[in-house]
């Protein structure tokens, strides 16, 4: 939405695009453009290049590698990265545990973890959800009991994204079972190689391995790996979850999907029904992008942590539009989308597969997650209802 950006912001976006397309290896970007998942190596390589140019953690404090950018610039940084098919820095590192450590950790914890977190020397996983603590996160049951200089952790985390790549995990654990639900929770950093930690894959309906269960059995964790104060973990978790008001909109993802649809749709683009559906999707995406810019524009006037129901609009419609775009690509492929294939290879003499044949339906299935994670869309409606009905 160039008309909604200042000249400086447009120039900034141009600079970002130039950097991403010239500095990140084309081999990695091509893979993502074809709808494939980045490998662990792709993500780490890309994050290290970004970090070497102070572009991995722009929203962190200056002294830990951040930039003094405006909210709009941060948004453009992320959008241009997506549009250039650059793997994003590990979100658990840069958007989650990093800001928590930088804001609430002591100097020792900061020095120990922040540089390695920015440079992807540590791959972090997120240990929040549990089998019985989903939308109702504060009902989590994993315990950490103080024993001398250590905590002893027992329990189970689930939906742990890419824990198979993880080196460390940041966990919400219950340190005071007698306190009220939210009060007895702490924020603890755990080395995934610790004895007693088991990571088990969960296979998702798309056939992929993206999430895991993580079991903790008498895992001994040094007490200096506690972030901030004991029993204040819920505050830090809320800070973490409220940090990004706009990233769940996924504008870049939707736009990339729309561009791919347009590239692959061929004669379908002249089909009135198909074109109408595509047009509506494009228009609502523009509306969502403008909503993102509106939220960013007033971010400076809202104190951090102030609920803004428009943020829930972004998550709600953003996830739905990401899903609609994935569905439309399936419609473009039609029968060609139906075979389950690990890759695009075909035996000699068979015609090459059309682009998207391998990934269209798995992506559609996979993306049903978007309206479930990060506060399900029903939770978002509840947040909005609460804000407008003031109950």
């Amino acid at each position, binding site marked *: 939405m160039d008309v909604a950006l200042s000249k400086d912001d447009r120039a900034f976006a141009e600079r970002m695009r130039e950097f991403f397309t010239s500095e990140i290896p084309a081999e990695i970007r091509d893979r993502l453009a074809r709808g494939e998942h980045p490998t662990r190596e792709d993500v780490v390589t890309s994050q290290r290049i970004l970090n070497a140019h102070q572009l991995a953690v722009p929203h962190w404090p200056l002294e830990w590698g951040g930039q003094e950018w405006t909210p709009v610039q941060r948004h453009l940084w992320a959008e241009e990265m997506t549009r250039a098919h650059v793997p994003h820095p590990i979100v658990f590192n840069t958007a989650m545990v990093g800001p928590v450590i930088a804001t609430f950790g002591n100097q020792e914890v900061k020095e120990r973890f922040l540089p390695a977190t920015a440079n992807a020397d540590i791959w972090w996983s997120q240990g929040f959800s549990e089998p019985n603590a989903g939308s109702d996160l504060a009902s989590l049951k994993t315990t950490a009991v103080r024993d001398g200089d250590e905590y002893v952790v027992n329990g189970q985390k689930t939906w742990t994204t890419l824990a198979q790549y993880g080196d460390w995990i940041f966990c919400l654990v219950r340190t005071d079972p007698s306190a009220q639900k939210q009060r007895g929770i702490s924020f603890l950093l755990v080395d995934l190689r610790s004895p007693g930690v088991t990571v088990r894959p969960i296979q998702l309906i798309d056939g992929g391995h993206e999430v895991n269960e993580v079991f903790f059995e008498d895992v001994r964790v040094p007490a200096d790996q506690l972030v901030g104060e004991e029993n204040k973990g819920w505050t830090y978790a809320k800070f973490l979850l409220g940090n990004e008001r706009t990233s769940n909109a996924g504008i870049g993802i939707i736009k990339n999907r729309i561009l791919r649809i347009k590239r692959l749709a061929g004669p379908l683009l002249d089909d*009135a029904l198909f074109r109408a559906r595509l047009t509506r999707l494009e228009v609502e995406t523009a509306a969502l992008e403008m909503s993102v810019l509106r939220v960013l524009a007033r971010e400076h006037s809202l104190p951090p942590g102030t609920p803004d129901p428009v943020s829930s609009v972004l998550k709600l419609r953003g996830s739905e539009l990401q899903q609609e775009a994935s569905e439309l690509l399936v419609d473009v492929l039609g029968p060609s989308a139906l075979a389950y294939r690990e890759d695009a290879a075909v035996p000699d003499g068979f015609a090459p597969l059309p682009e998207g044949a391998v990934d269209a339906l798995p992506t559609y299935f996979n993306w049903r997650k978007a309206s479930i994670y990060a506060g399900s869309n029903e939770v978002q409606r509840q947040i909005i209802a609460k804000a407008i009905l003031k109950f």
Partner: protein
Amino acid sequence: MDLELTDEQRMLGETLAGLLEKKYDANARLALIESDLGWSRELWRQYAELGLLGLPFDEQYGGAGMGPGELAVVFEAFGRSLVLEPYLATVVLGGGLVAAAGSPEQKADLLPRVAAGELLLAFASTEARSRFSLTEIESTAVEDGAGWRVSGEKIAVLGGDSADTIVVSARTPSGAVGLFLVDGADVRRDPYRMQDGLRGADLLFDDTPAQALGVPDDGLAAIESVLDVATAALCAEAVGAMERALWLTVDYLKTRVQFGQPISVFQSLQHRAANMYVSLEQARSMALLARLALADDAVEQRRTMVRAAKLQVDLAARHVGQEAVQLHGGIGMTMEYPVGHYLKRLTVIGKTVADVDRLTELIGAAGGLVAPG
């Protein structure tokens, strides 16, 4: 880029809102609808005093030289109060066309009178078979000495009942769509109240004396650019109307007691209200895009964005308007209660300039909004 209002724009909005809140309570509005004229001359004078009737015109023609931002502020306020005065017809459409296509003499003659509240205009374009096309028209214009003569029938002319001067589109001998000025006294009118309470008319031109507005064969470009402005204004008006319809609904949910409790405790209703809010905010974002787009010099790009805005707004308006009535239950169906009037205005906006299907087709034909690069 400042996406928020300037202090001056905010003040303009507050001043106008203050005036409208005094004059436009539900009963006063119903009485106005029932009156002969259908709107308030007194308010029209006050709009003139506030400088609203010359808002977009150049200062040399008695205007305030203001832009899309101010116009959006005015229309949002109009939407909240469901204003009945023929502002869109006279200032945005009629005045806009004179400003865009008229000769310097025509502008100097007409615009100061519009700004002073002394002249009402209307734009007659739509015909029974044209639907939303500007070019599929059968009205014709022929030269007659120094002037022209126009023949044809126009329908759904907003403000056509009371306009002193009509700007009418007609096909010229060269086949182009031209614009002509016709004295209201020379036209046969079938005036009516529209479904939303605003006034309009069908107009019959039968070899009616006319004056070319500017260069006759250049009419279409002027019409299209003025309709861009009008579309952005309608988007803002719809956002104002949706906002008020939602707050009416929210208040009702909190006060209506059934089964011993306010019905706002029911989650099915909470989530429907939340969905209305989602539609409203997405529409608000696109109304903002529409007014920013008006500053874009690339005509095709601007037009596609403005159309996209109205598409989003119209879809939202249908959703919010229908749900507002549904969540009110029976009271929402009554003429006496305001919420149904919001549904009616929003519905008519949805069929003004272009509707959802037409907009979808036009945006799609232009290649959509998301382009590589």
